[in-house]
């Protein structure tokens, strides 16, 4: 990266008269390129280098093992189960978050005076750190002292009470529910901006023609939101593929790996099993999976666009 920018400046300089203007792009871009080279590009390349080692991360006993770790990764069911959980997270994130966010956006669009205060309160979960939410919801789901089971008991649904985070059938779903709870308001605000850009004259005219609110929504407003929903879905999927925080805090990937994600599996390999080489292979494998899926998604939707 550094190379490219220096060469471009030199190329344009043409001898001794290196004017300030010719140097300008180099000077303006140098800090950004330096930071990205050291803390993003180098680690990325280094991760692939480490993936070829058998190393516990301590001392100099690292052994070059070629592609052994990669062969192991390809047949590592734990990794592919984790990748599958990432895909489940992505699919359910989109299926749960998008419809609810659209409904809430429409609700607030019609709520008049109350909409501002509702929007502000709905947004609160997004300000919380994932550790804070993770710890809070760990107690919320607690089998003995958790308010969720107490609530189910109170309304006479006590037989539905579960050890939400300790049961392989529910752990992933329980965390997905929290992730959705946190992010729905984000997409709601995105969709509210989309709805706000819907021309009021059109819905006025449609109403004069006798169209109901429902018709206006399904036939006009929803198609108007299509692009925004697509953007939101892509964001949601990419976020889900590299998700780590809440799963790590709430379940650590357990029980029995039932909520393991690629990132938590990588973390466990490096910092719990001290398999730094194989952990780097998992990280690099995750990188490849994320980049592949993201580039397919981005190809299908327009690139580089901002909303709001």
């Amino acid at each position, binding site marked *: 990266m550094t190379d490219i*920018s220096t060469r471009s400046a030199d190329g344009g300089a043409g001898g001794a008269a290196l004017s300030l203007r010719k140097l300008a792009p180099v000077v303006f871009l140098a800090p950004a390129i330096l930071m990205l080279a050291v*803390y993003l590009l180098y680690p990325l390349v280094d991760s692939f280098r480490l993936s070829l080692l058998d190393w516990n991360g301590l001392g100099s006993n690292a052994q070059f093992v070629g592609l052994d770790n990669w062969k192991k990764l390809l047949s590592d069911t734990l990794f592919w189960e984790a990748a599958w959980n990432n895909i489940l997270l992505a699919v359910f994130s989109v299926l749960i978050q998008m419809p609810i966010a659209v409904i809430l956006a429409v609700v607030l669009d019609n709520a008049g005076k109350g909409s501002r205060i509702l929007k502000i309160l709905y947004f609160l979960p997004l300000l919380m750190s994932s*550790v804070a939410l993770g*710890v809070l919801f760990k107690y919320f789901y607690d089998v003995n002292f958790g*308010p969720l089971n107490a609530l189910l008991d109170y309304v006479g649904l006590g037989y539905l009470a579960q050890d939400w985070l300790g049961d392989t059938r529910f752990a992933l779903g329980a965390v997905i529910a929290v992730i959705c709870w946190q992010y729905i308001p984000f997409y709601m605000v995105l969709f509210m901006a989309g709805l706000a850009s819907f021309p009021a004259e059109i819905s006025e005219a449609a109403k004069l023609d006798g169209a109901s609110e429902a018709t206006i929504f399904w036939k006009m407003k929803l198609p108007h939101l299509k692009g925004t929903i697509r953007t939101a879905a892509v964001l949601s999927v990419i976020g889900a593929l590299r998700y780590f925080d809440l799963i790590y805090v709430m379940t650590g990937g357990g029980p029995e790996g039932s909520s393991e994600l690629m990132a938590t599996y*990588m973390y466990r390999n490096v910092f719990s099993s001290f398999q730094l080489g194989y952990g780097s292979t998992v990280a690099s494998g995750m990188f490849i999976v994320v980049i592949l899926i993201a580039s397919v998604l981005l190809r299908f939707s327009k690139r580089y666009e901002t909303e*709001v």
Partner: protein
Amino acid sequence: MASSPATRVAGRIAVPVLGLFWLAVTTVPFLFMVMTTFKTQEESYSSSVWALPESLNFVNYADVLSGPFLTYLKNSVMVVAISVVLIVLISAMAAYAFARIRFRFNEALFGLIVAGMIVPIHITLVPIYLMTREIGLYDSPFALIGPYVATSLPISVFILTEFMRQIPKELEEAARLDGCGPFTIFFKIFFPLSGPGLSTIAIYNAIMLWNEFIFAYVLTSSTSTRTLPLAIWDYQGQYTSNIPAILAVVTLTSLPLVVAYAFGQEKIVKGMMAGSVKG
């Protein structure tokens, strides 16, 4: 679907019902949290979880604040402040070059940096951990600044470049005719004119970094060097089953952003939505 009175009435009821329903879904966990912090540990076991505390007792807060909580807070403030200043300055400079200076590889380089937005940061974790040990920054709050700045740059450069492209060219051309060079133009014209864009990325990154967990968790290990999200983690280990005390830590760590939010909701919502950029 003709407009019948029945559907209209249904719509009129649905809006407040759904609005209040989601309000409950959002706020009940927080109400549970704050309520529990006023209970004693014994109370949290003996009474129903949904019962109101017997009295407003601040013993859990006093307990937490008598510990190293303020050290975590100080570290967070320092790391976030330094990182955000650097992010704003570095990304504004890069954005100016991309938006206004013609040079070879402008578009290619911009595309490359923007592509950094989809890189899962976890792939950088182990190499950065090793590098941090190597340069002797391990277990120092300053170890976080490099990764924080670098991971925030792609989205910040992208947002600011878009922003600066909208700034009218007349001012700049007038300044150039007056003999100003690119550096004067940047500091005297672009930096001030980009105010709203700069504040958006400052708010967005400040919130993201204030809550950042994984780098802080991996690159620091002592109470004296860790940031607020780790306070929750560490206290959790220390208090184990004292639920009210742990939730008091969670409440206290969340308080600074909630207070900031009370003063500038619109700005913070707008700043957070800056994250809705598709790379």
